[in-house]
């Protein structure tokens, strides 16, 4: 056997993985824990003097101005979740079990809409159903007055259509690996139809549905862009945080910090609720014989197919709307008949830097994510200990932190010497990495659990040290899975707005910020052009993703 080099000897002695854990902790502590602690402490220091006080928290619960936003947020999120379930479960069932034509197309439509940012949905629905919306004007001619889409109604519409795909895809996935012999046993015992669905099928996919519901709830709770655009007076927590921050900035963002703490607590409690309710009840099914696809009678076939495609089209409406409007002539904020590439030209002149930056930052963030994800997931799965469990917990924590809150705490932590990162691209890349780390860890650890330990043991047995085995065997076998997870993160990063809105500066603006600003300034054509560019990039990345996972990858 080869004599190990001095580097290898040193690493072996300290433990390469010990080093990894140390490095991961150091990074997490500096970029995540330290800003979080800053936020926590600021929330308790409302007065100039710096005395500890619960005043901000008391004010929050005492004053309707603040407390109502909490009610609003929950109202929006709960309603959205309910509607998303009502829409996603039946549709998922119908598509999984019946011979609806073009399932791949349907799923592609749903996935594309899933991967696009919600605020584009908000903007598109304003174009369609707003005060001067395309459809609004159309039906006004025949005397129908569409009620306003702003406020609560608009939020529910946008969020439901944007987020029901989560439930839809989860349900579809669960039903496709369902053990059909369970349902056959029920039929054999005399139970069929709706009763069978309610007593056997749905209870067994309940854990999946609740998992999807949690995602829907937390996403709608934390989103900033949509309520900023379409909320208009119906304030929800993220908007409140943003406004408080903007008015307190330059000083100490104490109330904003308090609000941030409260949002995080809300997310945490929802997660805990789900964990408790599901608890030990996880049904793993062998998926030996997935259920066969049933043929529908003529009438149900037509009705259900039309319904499914209609819903998918509604979900995809933002993308279609923005694509179309990007090619329409504009005169200031108004659209005039006729097609032109003016919007794209104006984007090119004004915002080409934003486009370049978006893709650059996302790519750099993705590289960090892959590196951190691979190494830390390995220690978490293969070198399990109480320390790695803590690391796992810390790295998953950004899941409950809304993007806007993350932006604020990063600014507060790094806006004075010795470490000044505000206004740089670095702080944005850091924010993106932090936001997506939980997803990368989850997909990487998932792959590791599936990877048979014996491949690594075989390598060790043949004389390759554990550390080298990681690089020669494990990392390579993990890579496709990690990469596909990374691509999904890349897609959501190019679309990210919540933290970008807080962190950007003149030289670091991205496409999403540009879209938002253009909408605020009535540049609808340019906003549409930019949104179309994002959609285009999303579709291409999806194709890459599909190739990598050989069509078997799951997007949720």
């Amino acid at each position, binding site marked *: 056997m*080869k004599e190990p080099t001095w580097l290898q000897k040193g690493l072996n002695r300290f433990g390469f993985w010990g080093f990894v854990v140390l490095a991961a902790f150091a990074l997490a502590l500096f970029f995540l824990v330290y800003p979080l602690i800053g936020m926590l402490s600021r929330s308790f220091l409302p007065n100039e003097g710096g005395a500890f006080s619960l005043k901000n928290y008391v004010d929050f619960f005492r004053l309707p101005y603040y407390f109502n936003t909490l009610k609003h947020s929950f109202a929006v999120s709960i309603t959205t979740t309910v509607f998303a379930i009502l829409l996603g479960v039946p549709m998922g069932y119908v598509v999984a079990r019946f011979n609806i034509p073009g399932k791949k197309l349907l799923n592609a439509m749903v996935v594309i809409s899933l991967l696009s940012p919600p605020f584009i949905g908000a903007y598109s629905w304003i174009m369609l159903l707003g005060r001067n919306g395309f459809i609004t004007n159309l039906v006004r001619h025949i005397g129908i007055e569409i009620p306003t889409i702003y406020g609560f109604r608009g939020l529910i519409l946008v969020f439901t259509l944007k987020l029901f795909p989560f439930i839809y895809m989860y349900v579809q996935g669960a039903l496709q690996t369902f053990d059909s012999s369970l349902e056959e046993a029920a039929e054999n015992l005399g139970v069929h139809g709706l009763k069978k669905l309610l007593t056997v099928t749905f209870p067994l996919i309940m854990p999946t549905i609740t998992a999807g519901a949690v995602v829907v709830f937390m996403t709608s709770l934390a989103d900033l862009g949509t309520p900023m655009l379409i909320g208009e007076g119906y304030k929800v927590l993220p908007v409140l945080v943003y406004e408080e921050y903007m008015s307190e900035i330059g000083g100490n963002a104490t109330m904003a910090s308090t609000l941030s703490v409260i949002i995080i607590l809300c997310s945490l409690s929802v997660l805990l609720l789900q964990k408790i309710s599901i608890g030990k009840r996880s049904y793993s099914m062998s998926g030996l014989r997935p259920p066969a696809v049933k043929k529908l009678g003529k009438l149900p076939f037509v009705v259900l197919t039309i319904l499914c495609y209609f819903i998918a089209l509604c979900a995809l409406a933002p993308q279609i709307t923005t694509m179309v409007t990007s090619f329409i002539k504009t005169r200031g904020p108004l659209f005039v008949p006729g097609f032109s590439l003016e919007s794209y030209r104006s984007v090119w002149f004004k915002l080409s830097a934003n486009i370049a930056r978006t893709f650059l930052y996302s790519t750099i963030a993705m590289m960090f994510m892959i590196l951190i994800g691979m190494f830390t997931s390995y220690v978490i799965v293969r070198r399990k200990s109480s320390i790695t469990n803590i690391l796992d917990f810390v790295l998953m924590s950004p899941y409950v932190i809304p993007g806007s809150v993350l932006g604020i705490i990063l600014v507060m932590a790094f806006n004075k010497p010795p470490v000044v990162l505000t206004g740089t691209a670095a702080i944005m890349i850091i924010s993106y990495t932090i936001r997506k780390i939980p997803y990368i860890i989850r997909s990487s650890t998932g792959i590791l659990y599936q990877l048979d330990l014996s*491949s690594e043991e*075989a390598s060790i*047995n043949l004389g390759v040290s*554990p550390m080298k085995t990681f690089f020669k065997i494990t990392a390579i*076998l993990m890579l496709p899975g990690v990469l596909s997870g990374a691509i999904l993160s890349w897609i959501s990063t190019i679309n990210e707005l919540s933290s970008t809105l807080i962190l950007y500066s003149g030289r670091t603006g991205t496409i999403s910020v540009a879209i938002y600003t253009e909408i605020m300034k009535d540049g609808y054509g340019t906003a549409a052009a930019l949104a179309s560019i994002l959609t285009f990039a999303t579709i291409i990345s999806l194709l890459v993703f599909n190739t990598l996972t050989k069509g078997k990858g799951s997007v949720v």
Partner: protein
Amino acid sequence: MSQPLFIEEVTKRYGDFTAIDRVSISIDKGEFFTLLGPSGCGKTTLLRMIAGFNSIEAGTIRFGQTVINSIPAYKRNAGMVFQNYAIFPHLSVYDNVAYGLKARGYSKAEIEKDVEEVLGLVKMSEYKDRQPSQLSGGQQQRIALARAIVIKPDVLLMDEPLSNLDAKLRIEMRSVIKKIQQNLNITTVYVTHDQEEALAMSDRIAVMNLGTVQQIGTPLQIYTRPQNSFVSNFIGISSFLSCSVAGNTVSLLGHAFDMKLARAYTGNAVLAVRPEEATLKTIENGGVAGRVQFATFLGDFINYEIELGGDCVLQVNEYLKEGLPIKKTGDKVWVTFDRKSVNLFTADGKESLV
């Protein structure tokens, strides 16, 4: 190269639970030694201790003179064949087999020579450049074997390598493995729960249960002279009949006969009878009376379940070519035992009296 293997008073604990309890085994150089037992008996645990994937809480394991307790797994040179083959999916057949040699720093020429040689040995030469996904189960098994032996290990470890193959392939691979092992004279530790496999392939077998060794012996010894009722029950089929012993006389259901015992014993005992160690007669002949409960036709022999009264059920096989009349359910028969072959244990089954 091949070394003798010494396992001395080895213990494995998981917290409060003792998985392996002071096991001692000596394996000769070049011997094919099998660890046999039901699931949970500790055989795989012990194998992985030899490999270095499980820690050793007490005792020592030696390859020849070298104590390997504190040598990390990747330095032990104990080539292992895994139950699911563990072929690296991202490397070709050639690269898989060459993997261990590359790690040892062999030159390209040496590697090529050794790999070609071992692939020839397992008859997989034409598959040299294939990808693992293109290979069948049996072919992957051969590659796994080739990969483990090409590094010239001190000890070859095999963890139920045939359990994932279908019956016919299993039997075919048995002889492949055995022939190669004999050819190369590598000390081999083989783990299985299939007693037929163990009997067919091993030089010696250690029957294990609940973390302890029940008996070590050649296949013949284990089959004919099990040292306790567990071994007797695990290997082959045995019917257990309660009886009592006084001096050299065994009394069973009113009948008495003499047996040569290893030591003096008086008290209750258990007679272990294999289906081929008893004879049936349809005429009263001084044997134990019984009635046929079931007769099962199994091709070249008939298996009878005989009720002997007093809860005793005895299985007897009669071979067709002996031309004996076929008995039906309900027929009365008389049973005599082959006293030289049957085994006798103390009532708790823990000690053999022959």
